[in-house]
């Protein structure tokens, strides 16, 4: 899981590469490096965030220069983050430099073989075999493109690779199971893990497929398949705006994205309901009819959205369950032709979820990608794609995309169940949701709650029914950015073990809306923890009597029971954000994490 970029056709190659890397830093930030090529290949790389590399380069009298360049920002898989393990990697003579994202599974074998031939290695990485293999092929008399192809043919695993060779004004790249997109500018071409890396220069994009090779030069590009035959690729124009990925005056992307949620939800909903007829209109998935079973496969926050979607479907009488995609990929559930398998992945590139979807497809299931990224691998590989339309999300902690996932799942469930799942009032509630969410943001009161509980030992989150995924998500968001211990539970599960951990030092966040049986039972669980002295924070619409048992209350507007989880979750996002801010955490780039995990 790393970010890579390659550029040809600019005079200021170094700044284009560094600017591109800064937009890819969400993919990893253990170390960063660049290689620029003229007659020679010049490499600069450093452990640490990109700014460390930038400082190093700005201190140099003659920073690397050349007409072509590659860059890399790393999230360690093989070997610790050190200068030596940072990319680009080179061959012994320094003729060849390579940046790579993915995992080369047979690298040990290749490395042993090369060592036997007298090649020495400087790093612990899997990547370093690639420049050595390319160099060996060049020594054998192959031309540059052929040498890269020779090397890549030896690799097993997942990779997006960009290669630069001394004296060559072209870049050579290959893709297998790792994202790589080609940007078409004016007499300039780009390769990158993700579109924002070159959005400043062009919105014309070619999505590369597995097994393809590409060569870019200032005069054009050429894509070939595994048999070296040319491939005609069509380009698409992305409608994201380069500037949309800026922080817009906020201290953190996460806070900006929390505040963007009313807008994101409006986009998610726009044109997808017919309020006059009281119906949902989802043209993108018109061909999909009511399935016999639905399985959600997802990871992290998207998994919590999957749990929510499964609960909605079960309430509509459709058997449904959610699976962790890393588990499903290796232990798939039984699938028939009447099974719809929905992959929920913000980026559309989550490797575990792609594997799970492939496993489902191979077993004959119908697949649907629920994703934010048009043209992403999941969207292209699945039979159907449904976009959540949340706009670009840069903060590693998913916020607005989760809200948009929940809203889009409501639309999907209505569509699949022939519109009889939604009780009356769902469409007005959906239409009222952006403003209800704005109301939560306008009445922000989480900072004082956070101040009350700063320094506590552990934080628990409980909820029941549709609020169970909210409790899990609340805990995940909290722990991933505060580094404090947090756990989420189904409210009724607490007494089956975890209650032993509940003390005065463990605040419990209880999500309770409405006043139905679920709410009353959750209140019973709240009393249990209160009796053990735990401070209770109720996230509630004020309908039930939960406030009587709560030390602090975070209010959400009263709405349809299917919308309440979206609003309650926003309160928990704000709690996590402000706690992390108080603790001076690296909110947008939590340690050890990366936004879209494209390795398994």
């Amino acid at each position, binding site marked *: 899981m790393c970010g890579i970029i390659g550029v040809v056709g600019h005079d200021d190659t170094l700044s284009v590469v560094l600017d591109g890397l800064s937009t890819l830093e969400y993919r990893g930030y253990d170390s960063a490096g660049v290689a620029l090529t003229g007659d020679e290949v010049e490499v600069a790389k450093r452990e640490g965030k990109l700014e460390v590399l930038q400082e190093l380069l700005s201190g140099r009298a003659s920073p690397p220069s050349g007409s072509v360049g590659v860059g890399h920002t790393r999230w360690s898989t093989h070997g610790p983050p050190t200068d030596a393990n940072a990319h680009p990697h080179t061959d012994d003579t320094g003729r060849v430099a390579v940046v790579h994202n993915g995992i080369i599974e047979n690298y040990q074998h290749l490395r042993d073989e090369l060592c036997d031939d007298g090649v020495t290695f400087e790093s612990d990485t899997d990547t370093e075999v690639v420049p050595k293999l390319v160099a060996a092929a060049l020594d054998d008399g192959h031309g540059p493109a052929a040498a890269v192809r020779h090397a890549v043919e030896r690799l097993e695993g997942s990779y997006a690779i960009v290669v630069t060779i001394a004296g060559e004004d072209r870049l050579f790249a290959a893709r297998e199971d790792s994202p790589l997109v080609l940007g078409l500018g004016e007499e300039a071409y780009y390769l990158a893990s993700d579109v924002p890396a070159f959005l400043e220069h062009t919105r014309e994009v070619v999505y590369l497929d597995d097994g393809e090779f590409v060569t870019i030069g200032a005069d054009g590009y050429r894509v070939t398949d595994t048999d070296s035959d040319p491939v005609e690729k069509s380009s698409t124009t992305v409608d994201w705006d380069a500037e949309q990925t800026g922080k817009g005056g906020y201290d953190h992307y996460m806070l900006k994205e929390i505040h963007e949620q009313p807008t994101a939800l409006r986009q998610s909903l726009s044109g997808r309901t017919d309020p*006059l007829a009281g119906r949902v209109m989802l043209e993108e998935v018109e061909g999909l009819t009511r399935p016999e079973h639905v399985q959600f496969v997802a990871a992290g926050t998207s998994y919590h959205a999957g749990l929510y979607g499964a609960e909605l479907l079960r309430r509509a009488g459709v058997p449904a369950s959610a699976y962790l995609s890393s588990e499903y990929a290796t232990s798939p559930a039984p699938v028939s032709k009447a099974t719809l398998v929905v992959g929920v992945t913000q980026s559309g590139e989550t490797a575990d979820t792609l594997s799970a979807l492939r496993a489902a497809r191979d077993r004959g299931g119908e697949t649907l990608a629920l994703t934010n990224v048009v043209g992403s691998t999941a969207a292209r590989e699945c039979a159907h794609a449904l976009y959540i339309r949340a706009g670009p999300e840069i903060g590693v902690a998913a916020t607005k995309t989760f809200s948009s996932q929940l809203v889009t799942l409501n639309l999907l469930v209505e569509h699949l169940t022939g519109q009889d799942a939604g009780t009356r009032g769902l469409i007005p509630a959906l*239409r009222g949701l952006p*403003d209800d969410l704005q109301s939560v943001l306008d009445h922000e009161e989480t900072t004082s709650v956070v101040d009350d509980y700063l320094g506590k030992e552990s934080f628990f989150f409980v909820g029941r029914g549709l609020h169970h995924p909210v409790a899990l998500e609340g805990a995940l968001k909290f722990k991933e950015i505060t580094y404090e211990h947090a756990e989420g539970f189904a409210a009724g599960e607490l007494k089956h073990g975890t209650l032993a951990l509940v003390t005065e030092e463990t605040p419990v966040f209880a999500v309770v809306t409405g006043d139905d049986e679920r709410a009353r039972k959750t209140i019973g669980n709240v009393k249990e923890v209160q009796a053990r002295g735990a401070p209770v924070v109720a996230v509630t619409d004020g309908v039930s009597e939960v406030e009587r048992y709560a030390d602090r209350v975070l209010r959400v507007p009263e709405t349809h029971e299917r919308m309440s989880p979206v609003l309650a979750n926003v309160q928990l996002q704000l709690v996590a954000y402000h706690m992390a801010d108080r603790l001076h955490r690296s909110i947008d780039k939590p340690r050890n994490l990366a936004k879209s995990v494209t390795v398994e």
Partner: protein
Amino acid sequence: MQIDSAVVLAAGEGRRLRPLTRFRPKPMLPAGTRPILERVFDALIDAGVDDLHVVVGYRRDRVRNHFGPTYRDRTITYHTQKTQLGSGHALFQAADAVDDDFLVVNGDEVATTNAVERVIETHSRESVATLAVVEGEDSREYAGVELDGGRRVTTLDETPEPGAYGLFNAGVYAFGPSVFSEIEATPQTNGERALSDTLVRLVERTGSVCGVRVDSPRAKATYPWDLLELAAVSLEGPTTDETGAGRETAVADSASVHEDATLRPPVAVANDAVVEAGAVVGPDVALGANTTVAAGSTLVGCVIDQDTRVGENTTLLDTVTGTGVEIAAGVTVPGGPGDVRIDTTVYEDRPLGAVVADRATVGGGATLAPGVLVGPEATVSPAATVRTNLEASTELRQ
């Protein structure tokens, strides 16, 4: 001369527009179906300005969230005025970001492209300041202006006597970079730095202020009823004549208007808005994004802001709503003129039916007397009659 940059002053709260400004700054209030500030940016961009600066302060997140870093592909640079210490102080926040001559407009006022173009044409490096002037608007709200027969401003009077002037400041300016030192040199009034004080000082001391006549009257949001006027202006098609030809009915693609509903132009229906069967909407009605007008309702001369729902068989005249308002079935707002109380001042006979601020709820069958203001998140119980202003988050039972 060519001018590429503009600074839009959008930091103020707009106290006389309370309670509509409880959660957002005045420039984000609607001119028709879109925020005033969008129309300001449109006028600037259409006049050739590419580099947009906006000074934000009160509820600045709302501006940033709405626009983000660009508008119509032009970069927006935000400058924060942390405390509202006058328009000169506000402009000063952008001092480091502009280095050539630049425009200044107010974010709560719909400038016309023509006025902006005229100021750009007229301004030269010889002038420290150039301002647009408009004829005949005899108002205490705007500064009176005298020209020397040509384009030199000889008098700028911030407190004009009625009838004393034939020309008034139209609120569109161009400045040279030296204006910032002039702002610093202008004595403060009550701890604030007003841009108008600096202009007066420039007129009196240097005589290097130019005026250029424009023919577009000011369309500024100062009082709640101004929003009805701003909507009417923004709804008019460019070719409107006395017969009403050219009046427009603009319905967004994603809006739904029932075939048995009637739209009387000029009307604007924004994205995802819904007009149900039997509703009669217009003339002079702006329905914001994601609003709903339920069956059988009648709306005349109204600004209905985003996410608001108007229930069945409700009649609204001359009404301004905030966002997310819930007006139930059978509500009546008979319309202006009415006496409007803002803080401690009563403005008599103003063309205002009622203001219902953000997320207020008006119960079924309720009546709002002319000129009342219902505060944000206030609740009017069913069948109640509201005769005096209702404070924020309070409930009127009857």
